[in-house]
């Protein structure tokens, strides 16, 4: 597996591929949304506007299956941004990849900054097989959601939002539910909250990351020889098709869970 290009600026590690992919994803989503809402019309919507409205209604449908639409209205924009961002992010890693290979420590730089982990890797490989030529691949283009930091960041955002909403909008019910059904369940409830955070982010990361690993392996298989090349093409087609499916499902699931968690904390009526 290839590693990511990291540079160190002011004591902070910056993953260049993540920065690149975040910019690309946000740009694509924003341009798409702007194009769709450029010539808004009440009576005669264009194709892209229709698509965007379909998406809005789709997210509204997801929302209405978990909570009251009136209560959920402020989160419609959040859900839409999430589903667009995650879906576009998931799709970006599928069609191609950009990989650079470094053999020399001195060449592993990016605008004068050393790619720290590449250097580290080169040293490690050299130490393991001394005398051999070193080759370290660096991925520049991948799904941003295939990185645990990004998907956990999104999940963490939702986590913070959910608990903030619980504390401010439904303080009593929110605090009480930690002691349900008995006070001794407090640790279990706390674990549940953190497991929710973990599964929320890791589900997305794992699915997309695994898909990309397999794609990378199939590409590697394709480069081994004629037989491997022939075998890898149908496998890649099948797996990429499946990855489109998985990417859509994961975007859907992430937004669905977001609404579900929000609805759990803002539901004021007591069922217990």
């Amino acid at each position, binding site marked *: 597996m290839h590693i990511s290009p990291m540079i160190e600026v002011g004591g902070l590690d*910056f993953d260049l591929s993540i920065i690149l992919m*975040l*910019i690309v994803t946000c740009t694509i989503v924003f341009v798409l*949304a*702007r194009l769709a809402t450029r010539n808004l019309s009440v009576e005669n919507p264009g194709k892209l506007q229709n698509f965007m409205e379909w998406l809005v209604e789709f997210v509204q449908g997801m929302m209405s299956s978990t909570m009251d639409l009136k209560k959920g209205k402020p989160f419609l924009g959040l859900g839409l941004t999430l589903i667009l961002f995650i879906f576009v992010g998931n799709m970006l890693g599928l069609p191609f990849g950009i990989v650079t290979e470094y053999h020399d420590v001195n060449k592993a730089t990016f605008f004068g900054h050393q790619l720290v982990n590449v250097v580290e890797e080169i040293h490690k490989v050299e130490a393991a097989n001394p005398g051999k030529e070193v080759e370290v691949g660096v991925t520049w283009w991948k799904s*941003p959601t295939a990185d645990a930091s990004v998907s956990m*960041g*999104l999940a963490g955002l939702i986590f913070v939002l959910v608990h903030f909403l619980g504390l401010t909008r439904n303080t009593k019910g929110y605090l009480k539910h930690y002691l349900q059904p008995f006070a001794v369940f407090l640790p279990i409830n706390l674990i549940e909250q953190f497991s929710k955070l973990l599964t929320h982010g890791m589900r997305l990361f794992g699915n997309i990351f695994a898909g990309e690993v397999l794609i990378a392996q199939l590409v590697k298989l394709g480069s081994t020889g004629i037989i491997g090349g022939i075998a890898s093409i149908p496998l890649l087609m099948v797996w990429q098709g499946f990855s489109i499916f998985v990417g859509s499902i994961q975007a859907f699931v992430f937004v669905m869970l977001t609404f579900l968690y929000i609805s759990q904390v803002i539901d004021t009526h007591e069922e217990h």
Partner: protein
Amino acid sequence: MHFSITSLVLALIAFLALYFLLNKYAFGPLFSVMEKRRELVLQQMNEAAQTREQAVSYVEEQKQALQTARKEALEIIEQSRQTSSKQTEQLIESAKVEASRIKDEAVRDIQNEKNKAVEELRGELGAASVKIASKLLQKEVSTDPAQEGLVDQYLKEVGGRS
């Protein structure tokens, strides 16, 4: 797998920036347009319902108007039938009366004429009888009034028998 807080923070910044930009430039206008369309559709549906109600009430009115017109027509026919039969009767009645009057008049006229003719005949016959008698009885019967009266009496008896 490697986990870096910097990437996480960058992802959050990127996502939040995207969220605010989208909300401001894309979703806000889109939601308002969708809301406007919803209102438009609602309004048009209301209008359609109103128009339908109006149409139904118009049809009801038309039906009633038709019914009253039909009733009136029937009444008019009935009335005209009655008046016509009355008129016929009147006409027949008046014709009968006229006919009987004409007949009576004719009878009276005939009677008058007959009387007149009888009177005339009687006069002429009287004169003629007197002449005949005087011619026959020139010698014995003079034309004195006593004898003439006698003859008249006889003649009256004859006339009354005839």
